[in-house]
């Protein structure tokens, strides 16, 4: 029973990791951009939420109403003004520019908020739990997992049922031909980054409610997101959720054996899957 409980917690934690991963997956899928600063943007969103909570008196969940639109706009501008200039056949410019951004964001946060760790408190909701059979499940982890399902479902609808989604997929296939259809790549890339940032900000707020954070915790989140994407197989959003769940379960099982093994266990499972199934568990057949 205790193990089942651990397993369930791992699955729910996977929802948070899937949220870290979705943004990466979007950016890579649509514009072949791997954003090394992804994790630092997650933490940036956590700090934005912290400011909204402290200065406007919002609850952490309510701060999403401000943080999400803010990060959406930030993402759009970042892509249009900076990252679009780095895209091309050479992988070096986007990689190194986002790497530079990662170091910049970390140190800016350090300068403004110091290295002290922070946490957002969602009051009673954090300790509330519901019983399923003999298991007791936290309400917050359920909300996080539910949000992950909603986000992925919503994106799936956007991709397959709307004109914008078609434009995303067409651009992903062949951006030059997409332009011939009247698709403005620069704008589409901006929107993709904006969407990724919107998801990032939700993940950032949930992260900040779940654990304490400081300016240096971003890179680890990038790695979790990246591992979920690769485990799931590139190009599949539901695969990404599965990747997140596998990583979450590996981490909670590792922590159960020895608390020091939590993160290490996740990394080792990732490397193992990379050796056994280099294309991930659920690769998209077309690519």
């Amino acid at each position, binding site marked *: 029973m205790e193990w089942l409980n651990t397993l369930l917690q791992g699955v729910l934690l996977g929802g948070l990791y899937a949220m870290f991963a979705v943004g990466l997956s979007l950016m890579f899928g649509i514009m072949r951009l791997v954003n090394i600063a992804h994790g630092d943007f997650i933490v940036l969103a956590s700090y934005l939420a912290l400011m909204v909570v402290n200065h406007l008196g919002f609850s952490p969940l309510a701060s999403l109403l401000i943080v999400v639109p803010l990060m959406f706009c930030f993402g759009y501008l970042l892509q249009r003004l900076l990252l679009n200039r780095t895209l091309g056949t050479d992988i070096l410019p986007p990689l190194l520019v986002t790497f530079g951004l990662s170091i910049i964001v970390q140190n800016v946060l350090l300068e403004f908020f110091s290295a002290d760790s922070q946490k957002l408190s969602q009051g009673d909701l954090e300790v509330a739990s519901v019983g399923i059979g003999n298991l007791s499940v936290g309400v917050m982890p359920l909300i996080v997992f539910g949000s992950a399902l909603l986000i992925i479902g919503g994106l799936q609808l956007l991709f397959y049922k709307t004109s914008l989604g078609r434009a995303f997929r067409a651009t992903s296939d062949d951006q030059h031909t997409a332009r011939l259809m009247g698709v403005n790549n620069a704008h589409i890339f901006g929107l993709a980054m904006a969407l990724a940032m919107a998801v990032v900000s939700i993940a950032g707020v949930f992260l900040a409610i779940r654990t304490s954070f400081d300016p240096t915790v971003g890179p680890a989140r990038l790695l979790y997101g990246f*591992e979920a994407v690769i485990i799931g197989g590139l190009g599949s959003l539901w695969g990404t959720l599965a990747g997140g769940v596998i990583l979450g379960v590996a981490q909670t099982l590792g922590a159960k054996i020895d608390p020091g093994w939590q993160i290490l266990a996740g990394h080792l499972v990732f490397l193992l899957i990379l050796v056994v199934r280099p294309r991930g568990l659920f690769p998209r057949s077309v690519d």
Partner: protein
Amino acid sequence: MNALNNPAPVYRVQRTTTSSTIGLALLGLCVLVLFSAPLWADRASLRLVVEFAYYLALAQMWNLLAGYAGMVSVGQQAFVGLGGYLLFMLATRFGIPPLFAVLLSGVLVALLAIPTALIVFRLRGAYFAIGTWVVAEVFRLGLAQMSSLGGGSGQSLPAAIVRQIGNDRDGRETLIYFTALAIAIAAVAVVFFLLRSRQGLALASIRDSEPASGSLGVDTFRTKLMVYVLAAGWTGVVGALIFLQKLRISPDAAFNLQDWTAVVIFIVIIGGIGTLEGPLIGTLIYFVLRGCLAQYGAVYMIILGVVAVVMMLKAPQGVWGLISERLGWQVFPMQRRLSIQPRP
């Protein structure tokens, strides 16, 4: 019949130019001055030169990896950390003399890099970069679990072993000074000769197009593996030396992304990626910037990051690239020029 009257011209592949002759001479002079430095320079300056030497060696190795072989790693801190930890292990557990242990650490790191390569080579391009980072984290977290090596808080080099390096502080520092200098110069030399060899041509072709060079008979996997292992081993030697100088090691210091990879990447980008001169110029610029800004704490990393980002966008060829474009200079004779002279 014309050929008999007009003898065919002589073709010669020329590599040295006037600027490279002058440049190498100047560089040689600098090296001589540096080797005499312990006779006249103060302790702080010598330490600065040691630091300069190991950053130059790290930059040269990252440049070989990313700039010449197209393998952009953001996980080189793995090898710095491993080098450092292996040194501590070899010296404390097996009683191996520290200086010899520095070299042996490098060899062992190179061996460890082989299985690492087999895993991360499964990832391409930017994913390779993040994969190398995961590997570095695995080593960091793994070593933090080993309580015999001090666990998360690390350990210091025992006094008995410190005395093995040299009896007094001056003696130790002079020894480390010459070792650092030798490692940096050898790093530049090994990259130089590697690139001038057949392997260098193979590398250039892999960077331009991996499938095409594969189809032309270049064993791309072996070439990349060789470069990756060489860079890892050398980075390991530098790591061992760094922690021999620091006398203390902990997982967070040994596998520090900012110190051992971010700074190195910025150095190479600012100096000029894909050139031998770039890391040299970049390291000089880095030390000047750091000297001016270090007292501002985090602001200095922000400025360094901004400079690197702007450089990547506006002048991806780096400072040395700009200089050699404008003036046609080269310090290291790398280019091949065909000179045609009529037969006398």
